[in-house]
């Protein structure tokens, strides 16, 4: 009898129940989602986290989803998800901070300034002042700007601030005027020395050819070279104006890229979340 019971128990232990695949249990989905997130496979991690939300509310997951969108540079989705996090969440403060950071990342400077103007929280004041460095119009007061940041970073920020306040632009009007007076000088003004010298030689040469042909009574060729010379001359003026505009756009682009890189390295002077480090 004892033997039979023992064998029965032994046999019953080997029977496999028809249970769902444990790989899809909420606990394992969570582990897998965290693994994907830490491996920077953000899109897949979002899908996994969203599955977990079907089982109930979870503050961490609700916060990690928009963070993943932010890291994927899907800023509109990140803003949408951050704004869903309510005050009961333990991540409410962090999500609010990340929301404003996302506004800055997505170049929505005016919206950020409208929302943060007058806010006394230091993190938000920093974001507000940083947004002025990107904004094409507004420049904050220098002392107010620098005082809000750590003293170790003031030198770098002063540099960005100076470039924002007085960008090293070239005047397109001056470039055009210079080239109208002396062909090629507008290009030299915007540091395109080779182009400037070429334009000067070409314009002078056609002017001389025109003069030389009129002098030798070759009127047709005289007019022909005048026409070509004028074409070069006008083209050079137009080219100098356009080159100045391109130069200024390049200055803006480089400034913005360097600033973004710097702020990214500093995490926009905000505290990093443990799971993003």
């Amino acid at each position, binding site marked *: 009898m004892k033997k039979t019971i*023992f064998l029965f128990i*032994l046999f019953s*232990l*080997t029977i*496999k129940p028809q249970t769902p*695949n*444990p*790989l899809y249990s909420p606990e*394992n989905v969570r*582990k*897998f989602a965290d*693994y*994907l997130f830490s491996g920077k*496979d953000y899109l*897949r991690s979002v*899908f996994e986290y969203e599955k977990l939300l079907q089982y109930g509310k979870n503050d961490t997951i609700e916060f990690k989803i928009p963070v993943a969108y932010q890291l994927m540079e899907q800023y509109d989705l990140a803003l949408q998800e951050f704004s869903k996090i309510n005050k009961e969440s333990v991540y409410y403060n962090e999500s609010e901070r990340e929301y404003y950071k996302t506004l800055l990342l997505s170049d929505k400077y005016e919206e950020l300034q409208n929302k943060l103007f007058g806010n006394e929280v230091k993190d938000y004041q920093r974001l507000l002042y940083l947004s002025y460095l990107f904004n094409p119009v507004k420049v904050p007061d220098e002392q107010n700007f620098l005082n809000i940041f750590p003293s170790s970073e003031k030198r770098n920020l002063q540099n960005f601030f100076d470039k924002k306040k007085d960008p090293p632009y070239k005047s397109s009007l001056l470039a055009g005027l210079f080239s109208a007076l002396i062909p090629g000088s507008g290009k030299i003004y915007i540091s395109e020395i080779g182009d400037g010298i070429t334009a000067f030689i*070409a314009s002078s*040469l056609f002017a*001389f*050819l025109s003069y*030389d*042909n009129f002098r*030798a009574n070759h009127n047709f*060729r005289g007019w022909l070279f005048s026409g070509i010379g004028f074409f070069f001359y006008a083209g050079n003026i137009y080219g100098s104006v356009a080159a100045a505009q391109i130069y200024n756009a390049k200055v803006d682009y480089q400034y913005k890229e360097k600033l973004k890189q710097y702020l990214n390295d500093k995490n926009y002077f905000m505290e990093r979340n443990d799971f993003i480090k």
Partner: protein
Amino acid sequence: MIRIILWKEMISLNKYLLIFVLLIGNISFAQDYLKQQFDFAKKLFDEEDYYDAITEFKRLQFFDTSNVYISSSDELIAQSYKNGGKYSDAIHYFTLAELNATNNDDIFKLKIEIVRVNILRRTTDNALQLLDDLEKEKRWTDKIGEINYWKGWSYIFADEWDKAAEEFSKISPDYELKLLCEKTNEEKYSVTLAKIMSAFLPGSGQFYTGNYLSGFLSLGWCALWGYVSVNAFVEQRVFDGLAVANFLWFRFYRGNLENAEKFAVEKNLQISNESLKFLQDDYKGEKP
């Protein structure tokens, strides 16, 4: 006394037996779930749902702590990335699969897969380097035909049809792809000849590639400015002649040479693309 000892031994033996059965039961239980997961991911892969297939293979790898499915799942992840056009990711996973491969045939197959992805993403230098390495290794001497085959494909994608024909001819003198590569190579225009022709008679390089209007225009411009320049020299307006020759005659002459080269290159590209289209749509053999 002896009975008591025997009874105790029995109990002890049963205990170990019980633990053993439980352990085996649990292991096979886990293996079953992993097998289920592998089958599910493979099904997604077969249905060409590559994004989800990758997710499920990654899930399998995450929970497969004993690495039973590591090589096969790496390979299928790589195939999914390849089919999705994510070639760098595909190479990464094929390399991982190769590291976990257990026999020579699998290693060779995975090395060839890496070559094929390199061919597709047009890093043909990498593909050729890998194939050269395979050729040098003694253990792959029986695979030389396959190595030559993929070398031929590498040269096709590098637009070197003559070298491709040479590689295919090593497999067989009348190999189908060898004949196609030879035909394509023969149909192509010589860029050097087009330039030389245009150097001697402006516009003739363009005639050679069938661009008659452009050929006539080049000839006309060069004749006009050549005449104006020579005329200026004849009338002893040397500076005038030099300026016209330099800024107009030579400008059009140089343009004529560049045009001849450009048209020959364009025509060759057209011919290559026709052959590639044939390979893509009608060729039945293995493709990268």
